[in-house]
């Protein structure tokens, strides 16, 4: 294959698919390479799909995309060993189309998206691992693949190869990831009849529930758990910083089992048939860990560029948005008859900076550090909150004022006044 393309897109996840689709729609000659047997077969997500990012690329995606349930209710739980305190937001406004968020099953979703990319006119080749970039001095001119005679050339290579992005590392665009910049998430999918899920979660007619969890389930590590409802299955998973997994020495699947055994969680998944166990990294280094985004003949998009907002658990929408922005940059430069040099591709960086992607990452830029240095948010506080709730709700003849005093005392005993104030300030600043 000695053809030359306008663009080569490496990877067929949401970032690569958005880039390839946008380019192909604009009439560009696009080759997309994916190492999986089919697009999606290597990919893992919770998975919540945020409509907005996809709508800007495929406005009528709801017509045929494989969507599981639209989200009606969001629960946030802070767990102690055998209890949780939580809050819930449920609104019938979320029950009216067009729906804002859906659960999806990633393998099916990616396959669907790839179908759209092919319809738009891109050439998509699966079962092909890109092994290296072809360089001409500092300029990327193409890629090498593991197929025989597998070199292909293009004006621009878009790296949408996900969190590990071996290509960017080999080329020196990106240093190796540090254990504190990635979370390792493990997850299972449990199948249950649709009616069982409906009644267990108090929903009907394809409405769904999200439960986000923090607290003792992560054994003091920085991380969160989740449980999402699909149409006929539940996904349950937990993710913590890799640096913490290393420090604490607990196997990821043991942590997941412990979570599944929590008395508030066990009844929700009871009787389900587990049909898959998956693991994947999530780039959580945030704003300070974002690598250079472009150079001569290349741009980097999605997870490969650390575009995940871990506070709000958004990733696929940042991937889709950055994939689209990279494509739009190329389309504009082509229209202006400008070459794909670093100087010109800097426009992609500008676009990312002015979009919600970089603004949100910037907003939470200090969060990774605050959480890393303050494990009490994952240990002492969940415990204290749960104990406080227990104390207040136990009716035992003790006057309420005395109960409040005892709760206050337990907070101060555990963290001291200055500690409590300091924690509040730290969190408040990180959220600013």
């Amino acid at each position, binding site marked *: 294959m000695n053809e030359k393309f306008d663009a080569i897109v490496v990877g067929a996840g949401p970032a690569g698919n958005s880039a390839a689709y946008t380019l192909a729609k604009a009439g560009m000659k696009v080759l997309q390479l994916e*190492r999986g047997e089919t697009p999606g077969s290597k990919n893992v997500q919770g998975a919540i799909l945020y409509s907005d990012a996809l709508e800007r690329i495929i406005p009528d995606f709801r017509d045929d995309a494989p969507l599981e349930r639209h989200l009606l209710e969001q629960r946030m739980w802070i767990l102690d060993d055998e209890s949780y305190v939580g809050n819930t937001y449920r609104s019938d406004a979320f029950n009216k189309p067009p729906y804002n968020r859906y659960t999806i099953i990633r393998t099916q979703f990616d396959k669907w998206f790839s179908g759209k990319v092919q319809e738009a006119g891109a050439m998509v080749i699966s079962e092909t691992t890109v092994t290296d970039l072809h360089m001409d001095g500092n300029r990327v001119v193409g890629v090498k693949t593991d197929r025989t005679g597998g070199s292909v050339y293009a004006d621009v290579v878009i790296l949408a190869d996900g969190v590990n992005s*071996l290509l960017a590392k080999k080329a020196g665009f990106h240093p190796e990831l540090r254990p504190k910049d990635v979370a390792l998430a493990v997850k299972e999918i449990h199948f249950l009849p649709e009616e069982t899920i409906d009644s267990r979660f108090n929903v009907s007619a394809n409405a769904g529930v999200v439960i986000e969890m923090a607290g003792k389930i992560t054994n003091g590590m920085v991380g969160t758990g989740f449980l999402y409802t699909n149409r006929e299955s539940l996904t349950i998973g937990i993710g913590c910083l890799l640096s913490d997994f290393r420090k604490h020495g607990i196997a990821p699947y043991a942590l997941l089992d412990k979570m599944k055994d929590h008395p508030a969680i066990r009844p929700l998944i009871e009787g389900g048939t587990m049909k*898959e166990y998956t*693991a994947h990294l999530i780039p959580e280094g945030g704003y300070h860990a974002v690598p250079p985004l472009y150079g001569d003949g290349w741009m980097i998009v999605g997870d490969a560029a650390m575009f995940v907002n871990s506070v709000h658990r958004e990733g696929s929408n940042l991937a889709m948005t950055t994939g689209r922005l990279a494509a739009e940059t190329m389309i504009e430069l082509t229209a202006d008859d400008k070459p794909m040099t670093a100087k010109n591709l800097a426009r992609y960086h500008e676009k990312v900076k002015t979009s919600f992607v970089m603004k949100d990452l910037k907003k939470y830029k200090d969060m990774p550090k605050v959480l890393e240095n303050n494990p009490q948010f994952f240990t002492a506080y969940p415990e204290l909150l749960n104990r406080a709730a227990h104390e207040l709700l136990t009716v035992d003849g003790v006057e309420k004022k005395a109960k409040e005093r005892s709760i206050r005392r337990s907070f101060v005993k555990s963290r001291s006044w200055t500690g409590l104030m300091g924690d509040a300030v730290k969190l408040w600043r990180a959220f600013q």
Partner: protein
Amino acid sequence: MMRVEERLFQNRYRVDPGRAHIQITDPSVCTVDCHSKPCTFCCPAGCYTKEGDGRVTLITDGCMECGTCRIICTEFRNIQWEYPRGGYGILFKFG
């Protein structure tokens, strides 16, 4: 607790016989120098095993290609990590 093998049994793989995509560069570094051996407890598929004599063995058949072992081996950089050939390795049904 469910054993990791039982869990992995639910997954679909296309194994590329004789072509492990991950290799330990110098096994003696694992035995002698690396005291904490984080790969043996961080790998979500339990691919690394600490043997009684201190050696670490690696069987990649259950690998989910997450990248953890490569990143966790920061101190010794003792792992050569590539993706399997296109089409081989883990084939997620649901992801």
